[in-house]
């Protein structure tokens, strides 16, 4: 039964290979149905297998850890890496999210991408993504994790730039890959450091080595901070968050799968996976928490100012992952993973319903041209509203349960002044504002310019996933995963009632503010005040990086595109050529000139004789 787990990542890989290999055997493009069968089917079976293993193996025994050794990857000197999987409850939660939500999004994609000429390529990429993501979460050593880590980055790149004919998409894809690669490089250096210190990169071994030996705490601090660098890059946290809003150039289901539900949460997974190491270093923990708190606020405010429906959701994703980082930083490991899970449900729901909106409006994404859509696409409206409620963490939705856990834990985390909790609470208010603002702007109020030609584009393949996700988003709060086996039992006393009260009240206040804001904005249109403009631009990070890093680098590259070192050799060559032409011009073939030089030479010679 446990062996089935190995098939979970393998099936999407087979799907990918089949889809890629089709042109080798078959000259015509296969039908969409065939592609759907392979692409969606492979992930579906994976989801089924995961469910079977979860119920048969893990449900009975929460402490179960399954190790699957496939083959030895590398064995050089004392570097020993296996292609081995390590599945515990943490992994299982991720597996269920990836395969389950992934399957739903695949299904939805089959509807969303219908009649796209590159249908096959799309599903090939998507399957490869699922495979890489599964390897990421199942890896039992950090290098295999890194394999998945980079693999999902690649798929993200390919899918953001899926509609390659528009250069803007390509630029966004490139940006996404390179910004995350910066984090990945930090992470790679972290791996080197860990290997240098512990001589192993196997996660369980690392953890036991770090726990048992009086390991050097400075090295652990540096290493965990470097790993945090990787996590920050992949999860679009400060200061590497700038790629995610641009990544919305990809097809909307892609944004749902990669840039909301799964890949961007890989950083959270990484830190949760390595939590024993983080616990050894207070500095690293604080760093994680501060990064999370800052990001959730910054991204939240940016989300308020956006006008593109997908960018709002992108910033909200950054903000919500900020919550997860905050949770990690204060040691609420299971809270972070719980929020990761609920977030996967409701954010996937939000993106998919946003996709429906966009498709219904013929690829219009500006929320200021929408409005009053609840009459035209009621089903989408309901789904989107549920998503927004969860996102804002209205009571009794799934988002509420998970976020509440984080806030309470942050409250406990006194550092003299409850700044982390305050950030979280303020973030909750902001979340309420931006989520309902977009809901009201899109679905409520008067009809905008593009609302008139709205045509419900949902078909059954799209409705079913939406419905399931809506249910999950609403009731996912009941499904708190039993992660005690991984993180240990964490208990904390319940704080004062008013703390709970504030946490409940904030989204509601946000809702009210959002109503006012959306009313006002629907009148004023897209004009923005300076502060809004600043938030709209993502706090100027793009500008900063463009001018601080990208431009100088490009200019340097352009200046040096002829290779300055080559000029040394070219100079030498030019010098000898000059010398040559000088000498050869003296050899002009004129006998009388030779004679004159001969005479002059004699004169010189005799002059020497006379002088001496």
């Amino acid at each position, binding site marked *: 039964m446990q062996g089935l787990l190995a098939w979970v990542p393998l099936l999407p890989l087979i799907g990918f290979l089949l889809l890629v290999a089709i042109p080798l055997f078959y000259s015509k493009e296969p039908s969409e149905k065939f592609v759907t069968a392979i692409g969606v089917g492979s992930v579906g079976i994976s989801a089924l297998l995961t469910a079977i293993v979860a119920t048969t193996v893990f449900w009975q025994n929460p402490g179960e850890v399954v190790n699957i050794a496939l083959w030895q990857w590398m064995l050089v000197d004392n570097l020993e890496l296996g292609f081995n999987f390590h599945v515990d409850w943490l992994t299982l939660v991720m597996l269920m999210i990836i395969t389950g939500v992934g399957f739903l999004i695949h299904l939805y994609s089959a509807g969303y991408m219908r009649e796209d000429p590159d249908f096959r390529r799309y599903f090939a990429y998507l399957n490869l993504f699922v495979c890489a993501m599964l390897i990421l979460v199942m890896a039992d050593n950090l290098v295999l994790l890194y394999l998945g880590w980079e693999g999902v980055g690649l798929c993200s790149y390919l899918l953001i730039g899926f509609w390659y004919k528009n250069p803007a998409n390509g630029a966004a894809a490139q940006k996404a890959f390179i910004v995350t690669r910066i984090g990945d490089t930090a992470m790679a250096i972290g791996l080197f450091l860990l290997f240098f210190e512990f001589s192993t990169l196997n996660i369980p071994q690392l953890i036991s080595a770090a726990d048992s030996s009086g390991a050097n705490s400075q090295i652990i601090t540096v290493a965990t901070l470097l790993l945090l660098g990787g996590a920050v890059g992949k999860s679009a946290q400060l200061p590497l968050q700038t790629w995610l809003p641009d990544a919305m150039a990809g097809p909307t289901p892609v944004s749902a799968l990669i840039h909301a539900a799964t890949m961007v949460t890989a950083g959270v997974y990484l830190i949760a996976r390595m939590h024993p190491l983080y616990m050894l270093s207070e500095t690293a923990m604080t760093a994680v928490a501060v990064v999370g708190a800052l990001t959730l606020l910054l991204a939240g405010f940016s989300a308020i100012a956006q006008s593109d429906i997908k960018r709002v959701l992108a910033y909200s994703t950054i903000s919500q992952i900020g919550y997860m980082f905050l949770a990690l930083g204060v040691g609420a490991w299971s809270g972070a993973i719980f929020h990761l899970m609920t977030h996967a449900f409701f954010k996937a729901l939000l993106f998919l319903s946003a996709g429906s909106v966009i498709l219904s409006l013929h690829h219009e994404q500006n929320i200021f041209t929408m409005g009053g859509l609840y009459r035209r696409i009621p089903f989408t409206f309901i789904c989107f509203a549920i998503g927004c409620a969860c996102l804002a963490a209205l009571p009794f939705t799934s988002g509420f349960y998970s976020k509440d856990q984080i806030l309470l834990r942050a409250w406990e985390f006194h550092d003299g002044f409850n700044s982390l909790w305050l950030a979280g609470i303020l973030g909750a208010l902001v979340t309420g504002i931006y989520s309902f603002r977009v809901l009201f702007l899109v679905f409520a109020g008067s009809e905008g310019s593009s609302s008139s030609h709205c045509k419900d584009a949902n078909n059954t393949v799209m409705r079913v996933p939406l419905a399931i996700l809506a249910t999950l988003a609403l009731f996912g709060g009941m499904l708190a995963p039993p992660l005690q086996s991984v993180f240990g039992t964490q208990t904390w006393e319940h704080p004062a009632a008013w703390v709970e009260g504030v946490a409940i009240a904030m989204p509601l206040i946000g809702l009210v503010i959002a109503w006012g804001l959306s009313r006002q904005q629907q009148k004023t249109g897209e004009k923005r005040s300076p502060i809004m403009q600043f938030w709209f631009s993502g706090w100027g990070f793009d500008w900063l990086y463009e001018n601080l890093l990208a431009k100088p680098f490009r200019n340097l590259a352009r200046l040096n595109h002829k290779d300055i070192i080559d000029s040394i050799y070219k100079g030498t060559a030019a010098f000898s050529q000059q010398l040559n032409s000088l*000498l050869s011009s*003296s*050899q*002009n*073939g*004129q006998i*009388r000139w030779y004679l004159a030089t001969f005479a002059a030479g004699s004169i010189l010679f005799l002059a020497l004789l006379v002088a001496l």
Partner: protein
Amino acid sequence: MPFETAPGLEAGVLLASILFCLGLAGLMMRRNIIFMLMCVEICTNAAALMFVVAGAHWGNADGQVMFVFVVTLAAAEVAIALALVLQFYHRKHTVDIDQLNELRG
């Protein structure tokens, strides 16, 4: 037997030098190959004069022996050179030495 009528070694050397320099000057300034050949003759002649004067001064027959060789050389050289001039004129229809510059670098 001493020969009393001689005007002195310096005078002879001086004359040889003047003749040689004149020949060299002519060689450099003329473009006509025939004239250049004549100037070459002047130069060789000056050199020969030098031999003879020196030989006479030291009372040695070697000076005149060398003179004989110089004359031989001059004869051979002129013969070859004139043949070349003929060939050159035949090809280029000119005696301008400046036209002969195909060996330039």
